[in-house]
């Protein structure tokens, strides 16, 4: 006989759901029949390096900060969910010569990959179109499985990318991370932890830079006022296109910080050393 606290039991159950999601992804249909899907479930302290790198990335990019904030808050609350990593080597084409990658044949593509395989902010490339789609089907099955278990989940580029850079599932060219839980409603949308990170003005400025058209006054004069305040016609503001050296410098510095952190962790992983959490 035992009495379980409901939320605690439910959060523990998320690991079982994560395993079910892995099974669903493994059974996902493919177009190529040779996706070579690889998976790993990360829990607890094993997620700390990923959260730290996300936090460092978050210094210069809102979307990583958005995710880092949530992971950190859930960890502090003791409800850090398991993360299902899904990945594959997308640089092995099925030899259909479809041209989707931009090369006339798979042979030309492979020749290019052997010399020029590189990495962007979250993936190696160039990738085979059909392997990219197959990985999408597998990830979708993991998501659908979570949804059918009424589990909170969100497939994440950011978590996949930092996990890849930190050396998980070595050999994969693209990784995605699927946190499963914590239990509740909309834990990965309209996030409570995010309410304290940016203020009303910052939120409105994000809206403004994302959709300036919404805030433009009459444009017939050739230089429309950008309405940035209630009495927008007084001391009007305008849009200006310019280089931003300071921002670019901050980005470069942020990038360097991230690489430093990743190198430190990867070095630590090799040495079996205790990670230095100070920054």
């Amino acid at each position, binding site marked *: 006989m035992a009495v379980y606290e409901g939320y605690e039991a439910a959060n523990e159950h998320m690991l079982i759901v994560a395993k079910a999601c892995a099974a669903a992804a493994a059974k996902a249909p493919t177009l190529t029949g040779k996706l070579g899907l690889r998976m790993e479930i990360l829990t607890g302290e094993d997620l700390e390096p990923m959260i730290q790198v996300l936090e460092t990335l978050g210094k210069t990019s809102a979307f990583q900060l958005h995710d880092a904030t949530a992971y950190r808050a859930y960890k502090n609350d003791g409800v850090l969910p398991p993360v299902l990593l899904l990945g594959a080597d997308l640089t092995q084409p099925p030899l259909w010569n479809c041209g989707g990658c931009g090369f006339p044949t798979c042979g030309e593509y492979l020749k290019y990959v052997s010399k020029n395989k590189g990495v962007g902010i979250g993936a190696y490339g160039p990738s085979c179109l059909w392997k*990219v789609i197959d990985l999408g089907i597998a990830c979708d099955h993991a998501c*659908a499985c979570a949804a059918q278990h009424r589990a909170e989940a969100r497939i994440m580029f950011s978590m996949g990318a930092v996990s890849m850079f930190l050396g998980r599932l070595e050999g994969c060219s693209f990784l995605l991370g699927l946190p499963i839980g914590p239990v509740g409603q909309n834990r990965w949308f309209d996030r409570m932890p995010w309410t304290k990170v940016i203020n009303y003005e910052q939120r409105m400025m994000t809206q403004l830079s994302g959709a300036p058209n919404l805030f433009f006054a009459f444009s017939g004069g050739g230089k429309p006022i950008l309405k940035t305040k209630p009495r927008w016609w007084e001391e009007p503001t305008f849009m200006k296109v310019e280089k931003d050296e300071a921002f670019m410098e901050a980005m470069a510095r942020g990038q360097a910080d991230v690489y430093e952190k990743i190198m430190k962790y990867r070095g630590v992983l090799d040495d079996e050393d205790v990670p230095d959490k100070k920054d």
Partner: protein
Amino acid sequence: MSRIHVNEWPLYSPSDQNKKENVLLVARLMVNAAMTAPFTGGVQDCEAEIAHGQMELEKIAREMERLAHQEAPKKLNKPFLYEAAMVRESDAVVFMGNFRARNTPMDAGCGLCGGEPDCSFFYERVSHLNGVVDPTDRKRSTAINGPLCMLRAHDLGYAVGSAMWIASTHFVDAKPCYSVGLAGRNLDFCMNSEVVVGILIAVAAKNPYADIPPEYHLTNMTNMVDGLRKIAVITRQVPNHPYMVFDPTRKSGDQDEKEEE
């Protein structure tokens, strides 16, 4: 009519048509599920179209057979032909296309398309005005006019995955195919998309997309049935007999007279 009778055989009989109507309901639900699949940044980039009816499916199968013989690489000749046979045994085809992969990339510098931390690999290879892609030149030198934004193309997987999930939840057999998608796109299904996947769906006692024997484009059941129709007609003309006056199961003589005795 107050009765709905369902039977998978003969194909396109009223009873089979009733079954096909049910499958069409699932096809519609599959499309809905695909529309709610997770997409990069939550931005819609997939479209869908359903084909059903004997003539519509026949046109798709024929385009696949044309591709198999005239355009596809040799290693895809058999798969394309086999899948054309499967189209004829399907109840419907659901097409899913991604209309942004070619025309409105994600511009995130993810690295998937060219392994670079910017989108240069893509933009150096397509016609565009300050990053606005020109979609008006539609000539192709390969089956798919690449390069594509692979982060967008990845989304197509989620659309197909959710559609497949709904199919299997309803115990409808389904199979996503490159061949079907290519043929459908050439026939202007999902015509805004450069890359299209075709999902075959069917309800049958035997999953028509599994347990495929060799030379399936010739050895499929439709051909077997037609072979039987062709041969049975000839065969019956050999053991023929005037059955009103003669019963070959009896031994001999004037059978009518003996009956009277």
